[in-house]
């Protein structure tokens, strides 16, 4: 009888001790001040497929981007299904602060030079402050330097275009992020029979992570108020992102050849569903130039 009672006492002390520890942990959690939890890594990098994402570089980070688009697959085996042709963009982007980045690049399509600023205005967060989306403003200017000689009747500033985008994205879960891209592009000179100088488009896209390092991406830009007789098409891109160490490798399939906003949003000629598909890739490499204090 005595044995049983002391055994019972022993068990109740042990269980009280374990409960006490759990209680102490709970008490600890209650003393914690509520914080703001920011969503991080809504996308793996600054590019979705052809276009931009809301991601801003960290302060002092330099990103080198090499983007490559082959010719169209349906140009047949003689042209090695497009692999013989190549369109390239080389670019650099630098984070001045955690929310502001500047970049510039050069594209082989029309030998276009572009420069831009990216400004992350709002960050998605939960906790003390609830913000459902991350919003980044993107503004770029681009100038076509090809053809070398100005055609008759043109002035140099005809080669210039400006793009402004408001990128709005939400990370719904660690796997799924979606983004909307209202866009306006102003081109100094266009063929006015089929175009307006200003083009308004709405882009939509997203990424879905399948493993820690692999994600599927998609992106579509719908142009609004397109004039009758306009020969261009909306840009569609699908991609696979592979992340390894300091690189992100994006393998893409798109009907667009150009890699500046003016070119892929406004001047895509390919019909995706007729096989005018350009394979391509974006490779980014990140360097930390200024160590974080």
């Amino acid at each position: 009888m005595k044995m049983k009672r002391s055994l019972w006492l022993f068990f109740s002390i042990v269980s009280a001790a374990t409960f006490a520890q759990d209680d102490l942990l709970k008490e600890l959690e209650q003393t914690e001040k509520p914080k703001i939890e920011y969503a991080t890594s809504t996308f793996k990098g600054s590019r979705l497929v052809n276009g931009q994402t809301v991601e801003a570089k960290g302060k002092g980070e330099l990103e080198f981007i090499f983007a490559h688009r082959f010719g169209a697959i349906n140009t047949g085996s003689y042209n090695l299904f497009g692999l013989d042709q190549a369109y390239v963009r080389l670019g650099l982007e630098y984070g001045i602060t955690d929310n502001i980045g500047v970049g510039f690049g050069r594209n082989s399509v029309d030998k276009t030079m572009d420069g831009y600023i990216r400004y992350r205005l709002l960050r998605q967060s939960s906790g003390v402050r609830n913000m459902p989306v991350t919003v980044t403003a993107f503004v770029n200017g681009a100038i076509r330097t090809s053809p070398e000689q100005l055609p008759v009747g043109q002035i140099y500033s005809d080669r210039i275009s400006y793009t402004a985008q408001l990128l709005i994205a939400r990370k719904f879960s660690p796997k799924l992020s979606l983004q909307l891209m209202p866009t306006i592009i102003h081109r100094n000179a266009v063929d006015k029979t089929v175009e307006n100088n200003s083009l308004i488009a709405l882009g939509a896209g997203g990424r879905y992570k399948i493993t820690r390092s692999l994600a599927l991406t998609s992106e579509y830009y719908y142009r609004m108020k397109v004039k009758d007789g306009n020969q261009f098409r909306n840009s569609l891109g699908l991609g696979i992102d592979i992340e390894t160490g300091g690189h992100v490798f994006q393998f893409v399939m798109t009907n667009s050849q150009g890699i500046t906003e003016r070119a892929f949003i406004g001047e895509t000629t390919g019909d995706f569903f007729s096989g005018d598909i350009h394979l391509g890739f974006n490779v980014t490499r990140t360097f930390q130039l200024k160590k974080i204090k």
Partner: protein
Amino acid sequence: MVLEKSYVSFFSKAAIEDIKAENTKSVSLFNISTNEIVFSIPIKDFKFDKALMKEHFNEKYLESEKFPKATFSGNVSGFSKEIKGDQSVIAKGKMTIHGVTNEIDVPGIMSTEGEKATIKAVFKIKLADYNIKIPQLLWKNIAEQVEVKIEFFYKTQ
């Protein structure tokens, strides 16, 4: 006893790269009469030299959106409340990182002075014990065992 200040760091030494991070946002409670100690480390608050390292740490390895904290709950033994200054102690209990719990015992040093007490410890954590997976490609960048340093400064309420 209530926490005044905390410092947690970890260090991984590998052939290509050393990885180091520090965290000053941990919270802890230490009950000096029952010897119970608990602490909680918010994973997102580790500071790294490189932004990309912090991103990979949170997104890929520790998955901090799913497992936002590393916690320990256990007991400290081997000390006497009467002794002032440094004493060797052992903390025994459950360590939970990345959603996996293991029983550990960690030797440390406790110092008391009046209303204040400090507990310091240095110990190794094997990543595989907590299901933290290193891709084979990066075995030269990330060590299998990581050295963790903790320093908690307490005062009586």
